[in-house]
């Protein structure tokens, strides 16, 4: 619908988002908001799912053009599944991140999508990787992405501590997402969080009205 798309760098539906991932003692938390927008002024979905499971213990968060991100993730899931069958073992988190990186780098001229990959594998435990728009791949302890991330760099830098407990990390992630959603117009809805440990995967959804409130709200 052309009338919704005014002057946005991303054509079509954009995830225009806040995504984050953080390692705690024994696992990793990855989460996002749930808003999809068009042209920076129309919310085309209040409940879009941006945290996608690409394997049993590996999840990805998408940012950028929704169509591009969904297409890349679809292709990555298929590659990863095949790789896992060939190796006869679950893929490493870095393998998942590398698959995304290859797709983003090789098609960098046509694609507008970036990803956060978080997961747990038996070799290196909990890990977080960032694949940026142009296809750069780096590993970090805690990372944030999307348009809403600019508003919470200060919060993340100040409040993140390595080796937090699971509850502390969940609270940190929820606070960070809530702060970003409060300031960024293209982030909002509910907070989707996934906690991944060696023992399993747990989904936590925090509806908009249950998000933490800060001063002036």
């Amino acid at each position, binding site marked *: *619908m052309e*009338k919704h798309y005014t002057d946005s760098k991303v*054509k*079509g*539906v954009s995830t225009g988002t806040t995504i984050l991932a953080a390692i705690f003692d024994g696992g990793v938390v990855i989460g996002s908001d749930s808003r*999809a927008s068009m042209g920076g002024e129309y919310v*085309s*979905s209040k*409940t*879009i799912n941006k945290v996608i499971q690409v394997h049993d213990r590996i999840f990805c968060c998408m940012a950028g*053009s*929704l*169509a*591009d991100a*969904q*297409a890349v993730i*679809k*292709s990555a899931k298929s590659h990863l599944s095949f790789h896992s069958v060939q190796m006869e073992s679950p893929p490493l988190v870095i393998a998942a991140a590398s698959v995304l990186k290859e797709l983003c780098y090789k*098609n960098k001229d*046509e694609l507008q999508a970036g990803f956060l990959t978080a997961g747990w594998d038996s070799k290196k435990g909990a890990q977080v990787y960032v694949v940026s728009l142009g296809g750069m791949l780096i590993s970090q302890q805690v990372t944030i992405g999307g348009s809403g991330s600019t508003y919470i760099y200060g919060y993340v830098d100040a409040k993140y501590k390595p080796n937090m407990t699971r509850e502390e990390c969940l609270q940190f992630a929820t606070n960070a997402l809530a702060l970003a959603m409060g300031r960024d117009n293209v982030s909002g809805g509910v907070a989707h969080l996934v906690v991944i440990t060696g023992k399993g995967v747990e989904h936590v959804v925090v509806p908009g009205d249950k998000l933490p409130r800060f001063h002036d709200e």
Partner: protein
Amino acid sequence: MALSTVLETPGAGFNFENATRNAALEALFEGGQTPKPLKTGTTIAGVVFKDGVVLGADTRATSSEVVADKMCEKIHFISPNMYCCGAGTAADTEKTTELLSSNLSIFSLNSGRNPRVVMAVNILQDMLYRYHGQIGANLLLGGVDCTGNHLYTVGPYGDVDKVPYLAMGSGDLAALGILEDGFKHNLELEEAKELVRSSIHAGIMSDLGSGNNIDVCVITKQGVDYIRPYQESEYKDDRKMNYKYRPGTTKVLTEKVVPLKLEVVQETVQKMETA
């Protein structure tokens, strides 16, 4: 990939050939003014209710300011358990849904299974993504299969979202207002039909590109009830369509008969074999 579902196998990986071709064609036109494809100007809506999915659409197709078709069909058949509403470029929605429908019948025949709604959505997503937004089809696909009742939206760039209700087209904002207000989970059939009808009606009233009648399509496990039209426009004109006048309508004032004198110039006889 699943070769049994598509007539032609797409190449591996992403293929942006068509997008680059289109960009090159744009350069040929002066001022970058490529010819604009016909857009229908539409209101379509869909709602998931307790026993299935209800889809609705208006029936006006416009060509700039003229109404080209007053009884256009915007709810397209995909398979016996799935229908798809299309907004955007008329030809694109028509052909994309036809292609999807034929690919799904081939799949059904090959695999012996009824297609699932997710499968149709995946095929649409792959196809529209390959064309990078050049196919102007905003689709609302609803259906019932063994996994439940589903409603999905697919955009022209290939983005997909699973929704409990949605409206698309130029009248979407008006229709969405009604849907946001009236939607509840597990509606009854009559409530769902009335919700869809009033949302399309809102689109027709508030958008110039939407109008005429309202079509409603109800899909449940038992089958499909395609009600066309569900509600006729109040402004329907009363055309007879048949302009035969009985003899005597026009009064005969005078009559003059002039016999023509004809002479036989040539006569040929052809014998027919009738044995």
